C-alpha cells in the first residue's frame, strides 16, 4: 500500500527555458535550460531541482549541472541553502559558432532518514515519498543500520534522475536571394534581341541567372508541360557566414512549399546553390501555358525554423505541349531556322493558354496567326517566318503564313507540315496555268479557284490563286491566312491540261514549294471577272 501510494506521486522533468509549475502534493521538478546569446557569443545554463511545500517538509532540493561541448566545460552543484525549496546552478561559457552545447542536470533530494533494524532482522528504512522507487531513483547508501528496534536519523541524497538540454550555436544570418536560374530548360533564344541588353541565347550554358534582384535581368524559361523545373540560385550573405555553416533552402509558391534543398555549405558572402528541384507542380501539368510565377525563398539552419530571404520573379515560364521540334521554322525557300525563339513560344503559349487538346491548341494558334498577321499575297520574303511578328506591317503571303503556323506549332512540340497546293496533276506535279482576266489588271496566270469567304484584308470571295498554302497538324488542315480549319482545300476550278477543260478540281499537293515557274502556261481564260 505504501509503495502504491508512493508510486502515485509525480516526478516531472522539465527541459524548458522558463518552466513554471503548480504546487502539488509530493512534487519535485527538474529543470535544465540553456540559452545562446549570439550577440555576446555566450552560452548560459540553468539547472534546478525544485520541490513543493509538502515535499520540502522532509527533503531539500539538490542539483548538479554539467556543461559539455564534446568535453566537459564546467560543472556546479548546489543544495538549497536558503531553504526556499529550490536548488539552482548557473553556468556560462564563451560560445563558438556552429557548435553543439549540452547541459546535463542531475537532480536529487536530500533528506534525513529514519533508519532502523526491525526486530525480525531485516534492514529497513523510511523514505516518505518513495523517490527511490521511481525510475532512476535510489535510496541513500552508506548509512549504518542499528540494532533491532533502534532508530537514528540519517542524512542522505536520493537521486531522482537527469534532465538535459542541447543547443546549437547557429549564427545569425542576414541573407537575400539575388539571382535565380533554371536548369535543363528548353534552349531559348531572343528573337528580337538587342545587343547590350541581353544575350541572344538566354541560357546557353545552363548557368545563367536569368532573373536578378537588381532588375537588370528577367528572362523567360521554357519547359514541356508537366515538367518539374530544377532551379539554381545566388544567395548573398551580409556578413559572410562563419565557418561550418550549413543551411537549407526552401521555395514556396502561393504560400506552399514546392521545393527545397538541405545540407548546403554556406561558404563566403556569395553562395550559388544548384540543383534545387521543384517537387510539386507550380502549374497544371496538362496544359500549354504562359505563366508568371513568384517564388518566396527561405533558409533554415536547423531544418525546422525557416526565415524569409526574399522573393524572386515574376518568372515567365512557357509550358509547351511536348518537346520543341527542331528546326522549328523553315521558310518557303527551304531555309531552316533551328533556334527556339521566345517570341514563338510567347505567341503559341498565349494563344493556346490553358489548353490540353492538341486540336484545340493548333486551332487557337491558327486563329492567332490570322488575327495577328495581315494577309498580303504579294509573295514572300526569304526570312524567318517569325519575322512577320516584328516587321513587314503589310503582312505576308499564304506560304509565309503557313510556315509561320507550322513553326509556332513545332516550337511547342506539335508536329506540323506545310502543304503547298496548285491546280494541276498531283501525280506528275505539273501545275496548269490558265488566265484570269482581272478587270483592273488584265490577264493574270492562275492555277485554281478556291472556295473562300471574302477576306478581312480585302481579298474577294472565292479568289483565283497561283498557289495556296495550308498546314497539316493534329489530323486537320489549317488555313492561317483565312483563320479557319477547312480540313481540305476545296477547288471550284482548275485546268485539265489534256482536254483544256476548266472546272475540274485536280490539285497538286507538295510539302516543298520547289520551282515557282514549274508548270504549263496556257491561254485558256476562265469566265470570272472577280
Amino acid at each position, binding site marked *: 500500500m505504501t509503495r502504491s501510494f508512493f508510486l502515485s506521486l509525480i516526478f516531472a522533468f522539465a527541459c524548458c527555458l522558463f518552466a513554471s509549475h503548480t504546487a502539488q502534493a509530493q512534487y519535485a521538478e527538474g529543470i535544465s535550460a540553456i540559452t545562446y546569446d549570439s550577440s555576446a557569443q555566450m552560452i548560459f545554463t540553468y539547472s534546478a531541482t525544485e520541490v513543493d511545500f509538502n515535499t520540502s517538509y522532509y527533503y531539500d532540493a539538490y542539483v548538479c549541472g554539467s556543461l559539455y561541448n564534446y568535453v566537459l566545460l564546467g560543472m556546479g552543484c548546489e543544495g538549497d541553502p536558503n531553504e526556499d525549496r529550490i536548488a539552482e546552478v548557473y553556468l556560462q561559457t564563451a560560445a563558438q559558432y556552429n557548435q553543439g552545447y549540452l547541459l546535463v542536470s542531475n537532480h536529487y533530494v536530500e533528506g534525513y532518514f529514519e533508519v532502523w533494524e526491525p526486530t525480525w532482522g531485516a534492514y529497513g528504512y523510511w523514505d516518505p515519498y518513495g523517490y527511490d522507487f521511481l525510475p532512476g531513483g535510489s535510496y541513500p547508501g552508506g548509512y549504518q543500520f542499528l540494532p533491532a528496534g533502534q532508530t537514528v536519523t540519517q542524512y542522505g541524497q536520493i537521486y531522482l534522475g537527469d534532465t538535459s538540454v542541447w543547443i546549437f550555436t547557429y549564427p545569425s544570418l542576414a541573407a537575400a536571394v539575388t539571382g535565380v536560374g533554371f536548369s535543363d530548360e528548353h534552349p531559348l533564344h531572343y528573337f528580337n534581341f538587342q545587343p547590350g541588353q541581353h544575350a541572344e541565347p538566354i541560357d546557353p550554358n545552363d548557368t545563367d541567372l536569368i532573373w536578378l534582384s537588381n532588375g537588370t535581368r528577367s528572362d523567360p524559361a521554357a519547359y514541356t508541360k508537366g515538367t518539374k523545373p530544377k532551379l539554381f540560385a545566388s544567395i548573398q550573405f551580409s556578413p559572410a557566414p562563419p565557418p561550418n555553416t550549413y543551411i537549407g533552402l526552401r521555395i514556396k509558391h502561393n504560400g506552399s512549399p514546392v521545393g527545397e534543398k538541405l545540407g548546403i555549405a554556406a561558404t563566403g558572402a556569395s553562395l550559388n546553390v544548384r540543383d534545387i528541384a521543384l517537387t510539386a507542380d507550380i502549374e497544371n501539368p496538362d496544359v500549354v501555358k504562359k505563366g508568371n510565377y513568384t517564388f518566396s525563398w527561405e533558409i533554415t539552419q536547423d531544418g525546422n525554423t525557416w526565415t524569409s530571404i526574399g522573393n524572386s520573379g515574376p518568372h515567365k515560364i512557357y509550358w509547351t505541349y511536348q518537346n520543341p521540334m527542331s528546326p522549328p521554322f523553315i521558310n518557303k525557300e527551304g531555309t531552316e531556322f533551328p533556334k527556339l525563339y521566345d517570341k514563338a513560344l510567347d505567341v503559341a503559349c498565349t494563344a493556346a493558354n490553358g489548353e490540353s487538346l492538341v486540336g484545340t491548341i493548333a486551332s487557337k494558334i491558327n486563329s492567332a496567326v490570322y488575327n495577328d498577321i495581315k494577309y*498580303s499575297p*504579294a509573295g514572300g*520574303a526569304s526570312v524567318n517566318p517569325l519575322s512577320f511578328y516584328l516587321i*513587314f506591317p503589310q503582312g505576308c503571303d499564304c506560304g509565309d503564313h503557313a510556315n509561320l503556323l507550322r513553326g509556332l506549332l513545332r516550337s511547342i512540340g506539335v508536329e506540323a507540315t506545310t502543304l503547298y497546293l496548285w491546280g494541276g496533276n498531283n501525280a506528275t506535279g505539273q501545275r496548269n496555268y490558265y488566265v484570269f482576266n482581272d478587270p483592273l489588271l488584265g490577264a493574270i496566270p492562275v492555277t485554281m479557284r478556291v472556295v473562300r469567304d*471574302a477576306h478581312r484584308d*480585302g*481579298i474577294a470571295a472565292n479568289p483565283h490563286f497561283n498557289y495556296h498554302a495550308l498546314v497539316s497538324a493534329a489530323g486537320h488542315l489549317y488555313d492561317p491566312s483565312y483563320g479557319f480549319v477547312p480540313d481540305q482545300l476545296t477547288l471550284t476550278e482548275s485546268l485539265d491540261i489534256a482536254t483544256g477543260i476548266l472546272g475540274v478540281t485536280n490539285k497538286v499537293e507538295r510539302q516543298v514549294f520547289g520551282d515557282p515557274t514549274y508548270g504549263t502556261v496556257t491561254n485558256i481564260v476562265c469566265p470570272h471577272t472577280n
Partner: protein
Amino acid sequence: MNKLIFKSILILLVSCSSVSIAQSKLSSEEKLSLKKIADTIDRSILTKEAGWRMKNKKTLGNIAESEWEWGDRQISVTILHYSSVAEATKGLQAAISPSMGKISKENGLGDEGYVWRMSTTKGETCAVKFRKANFLIFISGGELSFGKKFAKIADDSLTENVLQRK
C-alpha cells in the same frame, strides 16, 4: 555576226562590272552598316517626299524597316541586307512568286526590279521589290505611283551611298 559578238562581249562586260561592284560593296561591309543605309534612305525620303511622316522605324537582324504615312496613306520601306549578291538574288526570287495577283518586271529599277499589283475589295494594292547589289528593298502599301517614287528614292540613295563607295 560581228554585231552579235560585239553585243555578247558588251553584255559580258556589263555583267562582270555588276558583279565587281557588288563584291566591292561586300568588302566594305563593315563601314556600311544596315542602320546607316536605312538612315540614308529615310533622310532621302524626308527630303524628297514632302508631307510624308515617318511613323515607325525598326531593325531585326539583317532587316531594317521604316513606316511612312501621309493622311490615310501608308507605305513601308523594308531593307534586307544579305551577305552576298547570290543570297539577295535568291531572296528576290522568293519574293516574286505571289500566291495571287500579278507581278511584272520593272526595268531600270535597281539591279533587278518587280512590281506586284492586285485588285482587292478596297481597290488596287501594290508592292515594289528590287535588288541592288546585296540589298533587297520592298516598298509596300499605298498607290503604285507612290510606291515607285519611294523605290526610286531608295534606289538612288543606295547608288549614291553604297555602290559609289569602295
